């Protein structure tokens, strides 16, 4: 899952970037409203972690702009202001969840998974497709009941495909979910990871749609 973190405190931003990275998220970190707008204009995110008090404006402005564009990307507000009125204001502005500082890193990760699951309209936290079961929280994959060990990138690709079963995802879209901006992406990186993935979960599980990308094979 690729997420955008908008937070102006350098230490906290770094902590979220690294910490959520450990939890398997691909994190892009920005520190101002301006940078956040630029990031949202150039890439697609599965969720956004948004601070309210930013140097060049309020996070709520970003949130309202997003919703005005009919962009339903799940948003988790992180803020020092967490009175009931603040929470109500945030949620009514279109936020999906609200966490007061200081918070628990694991809880942030869990809430991110929860709001993206709700956004996709799924009831179960475990993604399942044709005998493959992927648990984003525990970061485990089972094929026909047997656990399979995947690398972080492989897990991310499989997770992206399983979140949109039957939909074709282009190599660029997959690369977006694997890498933040600061990481260099080799041109054939996605192909290499898909190749390893096929070895681990079965050759036929992932279908190549020539010229377009990959999708999970229908049953």
């Amino acid at each position, binding site marked *: 899952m690729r997420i955008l973190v908008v937070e102006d405190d350098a*230490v906290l931003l770094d*902590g979220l970037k690294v*910490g959520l990275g450990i939890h398997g998220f691909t994190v892009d970190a920005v520190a101002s409203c301006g940078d956040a707008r630029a990031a949202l204009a150039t890439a697609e995110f599965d969720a956004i972690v948004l601070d309210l008090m930013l140097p060049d404006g309020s996070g709520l402005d970003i949130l309202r702009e997003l919703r005005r564009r009919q962009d339903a990307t799940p948003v988790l507000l992180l803020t*020092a202001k967490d009175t009931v009125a603040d929470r109500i204001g945030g949620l009514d502005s279109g936020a999906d969840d609200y966490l007061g500082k200081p918070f628990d890193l694991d809880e942030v990760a869990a809430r991110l998974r929860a709001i993206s699951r709700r956004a996709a309209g799924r009831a179960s936290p475990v993604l399942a497709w044709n005998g493959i079961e992927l648990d984003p929280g525990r970061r485990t994959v089972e094929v026909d009941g047997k656990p399979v060990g995947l690398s972080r990138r492989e897990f991310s690709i499989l997770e992206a495909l399983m979140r949109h079963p039957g939909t074709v995802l282009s190599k660029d879209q997959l690369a977006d979910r694997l890498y933040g901006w600061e990481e260099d992406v080799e041109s054939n990186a996605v192909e290499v990871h898909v190749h390893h993935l096929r070895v681990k979960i079965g050759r036929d599980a992932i279908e190549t749609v020539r010229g377009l990308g990959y999708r999970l094979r229908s049953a």
Partner: protein
Amino acid sequence: MSSIRTRLFIILIAATTLIWLFATAWIYLDTKRQLQHVLDTRLMEAARMVGSLVTSGEIALSARAGEAPASIPLPEPTHVGYERQLSCQIWSFDGRLIGRSSGAPEAALSNETSGFSEQEVGGEPWRVYAFADRDRGIRVLVGDRLGLRDRLVTDLVRGLVLPAIVVVPLLAFLIWASVGSGLRPLRRLTQGLKARGPEDLSPVSVGNPPSEIRPVVDALNGLFGKFAAAREHERSFTAFAAHELRTPLAGLRTQVQVALAARDPEIREGAMRQTLVAVDRTSRLVRQLLAMSELDAVPDEGEPQDIVVGRAIEDIAASLRTSHTDVGVEIDPALHHTTIRMNRELFHLAVRNLHENAVQHSPAGGRVRWVLDSSASPPVIAVEDEGPGIPEDEIGQVTDRFFRGRHRSPVGSGLGLAIVDAALRRAKASFVLHNRQGRSGVRVGFGIDVATG
């Protein structure tokens, strides 16, 4: 409980009663005197009249001894209550009663030959006027009873006192009611104050208060206003402080969790380093909050001391130097020959925060310069940085607590310049801030009454 109403009531009633009693006593004495005078004149006239009637022979007297005294007709009094006021006797010089009015006692009314006298006759005090007619050898005595006179006065006074006794309760009621209505604004004020809760600091409203109450209402409202402002200030300060602390605490917690969760030693080390930065920042914030509340708590300017500015700034800059900054510090040599008188702690607070502020806003490799501008009046000690400067529209707000402008440094709290301002205010020095001319950056410092040595 002593109530103004009761007190006023008692004072007014007592004063009224006293004045009344005084007036009554006055009237009593005066009337008595006047009456004495009038009645005495009447006695005198009556005596002379009887005398002259005897002389003209209109009254026949029993000239012989043993004969009953002639009756002297006196005008019958019309008023029943005071009937037989006057009594008249005519005595011969040889001591015979030769004529008397009806109802007059038989004993001599007076032993005097002429003039007024008072005497007890038949158990009653009499006032008598004696008139002697030496030609005819008779003494005419006309008198009236003193008891009657007293009754006259008493009746008169009773006529005055009786209505008063009836009126006093009515007056008491009127005084009680009007004092009550006069004090109504005070009562409304009291009720208004009693009814408000401990959190209610809104101004008291008593409609249109009378001029005696207005100062009280104004003073109360002034006090409420000040109290509300102080509480609001305290509340917002606490709220801001809490908010400001939460972000670095969140950063700390996250970094520690990262350090615990990371298997990669490089990530763990990075998290530890970030933790250190966060701890430094948080402790600086706490220090600033303490400084701020201390500046708020003690409003005096403290004991001024002689401070050699250059040396002092050098010490402060050295104490603030950290391993991870590469900002150069330069101190104007003239400052080493400048001595000012200021409280050392206030000076330290101001300079420390000015210096931190300048360093934080400097770009990597930038230079912070402490300068003495003796051309200004008063001379100014200031620090210059090479940072982005402050947008002109924000300059008025930089000393607001927790204000962080658009060109904020990543580690600021918005308290630095507020502390500088508060410290300088207490030291009675002026705060000077403007963007640098010709290049980006800010010059910020304070005006001094300089004693250059």
